[in-house]
């Protein structure tokens, strides 16, 4: 009995028709696509994207205490922290800070070790540029963010 059934199923292409039914059902279902540059995806809060050097929101001064932890933990050694000892207060003061995004693994170790949450990987993910040198972010760029400084906000229109 089941043999005949199987034979009939084979003759009448039941296996193929089942597949066709699946694809037919989907033809009129809603689509999954995101229209990327038009609709920007909502990234998770923890997303490890473009780096940012945070300033104290009240005073506007940098949060970085130039402790050099991020530079040491970085697997690619791509962070360079320059500091100077303030002759009066004997405190380390940040002079420059570079972050080479071209080599970054976006592993997030730097933001993890940072004691003051100064270096942070943000949800900004559009890092493509036209030259290698522009992937070397200096302090100014790290503090202001990428888009705002290079192209203006309308670059991805």
């Amino acid at each position, binding site marked *: 009995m089941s043999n005949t059934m199987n034979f009939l199923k084979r003759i009448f292409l039941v296996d193929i028709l089942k597949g066709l039914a699946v694809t037919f059902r989907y*033809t009129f279902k809603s689509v999954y*696509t995101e229209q990327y540059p038009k609709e920007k995806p909502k990234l998770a809060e923890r997303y490890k994207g473009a780096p940012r050097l945070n300033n104290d929101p009240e005073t506007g001064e940098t949060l970085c205490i130039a402790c050099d932890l991020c530079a040491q933990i970085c697997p690619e050694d791509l962070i360079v922290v320059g500091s100077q000892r303030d002759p009066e207060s004997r405190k380390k003061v940040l002079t420059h800070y570079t972050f080479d995004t071209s080599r970054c693994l976006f592993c997030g170790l730097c933001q993890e070790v940072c004691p003051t949450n100064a270096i942070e990987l943000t949800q900004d993910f559009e890092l493509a540029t036209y030259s290698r040198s522009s992937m070397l972010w200096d302090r100014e760029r790290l503090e202001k963010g990428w888009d705002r400084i290079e192209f203006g906000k309308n670059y991805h229109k």
Partner: protein
Amino acid sequence: MIENLIIYFLIPFIKIGAIVLILSGAIAYLTLLERKLIAHIQVRLGPMRVGWHGLLQPIADGLKFVLKEDIVPSKADALIFTLAPMISLIPAFVVFSVVPFGPPGMFEGLLRGILSRFLESASVERIVSNPIASGGFVTDINIAVLFVLSVSSVGILGVILGGWASNSKYPLLGALRSSAQMVSYEVAMGFAIISVLLYAGSLSLVEIVQQQQAGGWWYFFIQPVAFFLLLVCGMAETNRLPFDLPEAETELVGGFHTEYSGFRFSLFFLAEYANMITVSALAVTLFWGGWLPPFPNVPWLGFLGIIPPVAWFLIKVFLILYLFIWVRGTLPRFRFDQLMNYGWKVFLPIALGHVILYAAILAI
């Protein structure tokens, strides 16, 4: 004299021009249709950027093809390499000269209206009464089916030559595959059509449709197996999935057109889609009653006649094309030897048996 000129030159030329134009446009938008449909099957959107929902995409693609650099590989046989796409494309269009998209006398009113301004009524009647002039087809020859089969097999030459002339290994394998595949499926397809011919008793496509009208039944209802065979073989002939072995991109990169780029590639591309339309039109003419509405002789379905015959024809062609695309979005691909096995060991015997069966039935 002038009447003959009009009947045999002017009107056919206009019709041919219209068909070439319409067909080219149809092909262009068939690609869009395919991309859109497959996209929706796959929960995607497909082309969206050029025009509203990508409506201008085919034009953009066409422009891109034309503007792209036309590369002839240095080791390729340049003459054949350049000829092959044309050999492939032209037959696909030629076939349409015998496919009827409307009934005889379709343009009667139109012709009468136009010609009566220039000619006297006697010659107008002469022209109008000529089926070639007023019919919904370019020409109606009494060996139309044979013509279709023979011309469409010329197109395969283009594929083989293109693969051969590229002087590259992937195209060569693609060409080998396609030559074997087309030969084997052509046979089964021929037999599938023969059983229709036996029933209709004519080789003219117009006649076959008229027979279906007279009988009241589309041949699909009489010979569904033959229709299925024609459809499958048509998929194989046009290199559609699951039979797209000559160009199986995951195996042969691009198959016979691997080395082609720009305009020449677009000719192959056009040919493939033109063939799709041809096969669909042929299937519609032979099995789905061409321009006829469903069940033409059932009186209470008479309201279906409101839709003009050409529209019926186009709707049916569209449905078959939809089936083609739908199948492409569903099935995996056969392997080369399995394809041949199916062709020779399954489809050919079925087709042969089918012909014999119908011959026997008709003889009784």
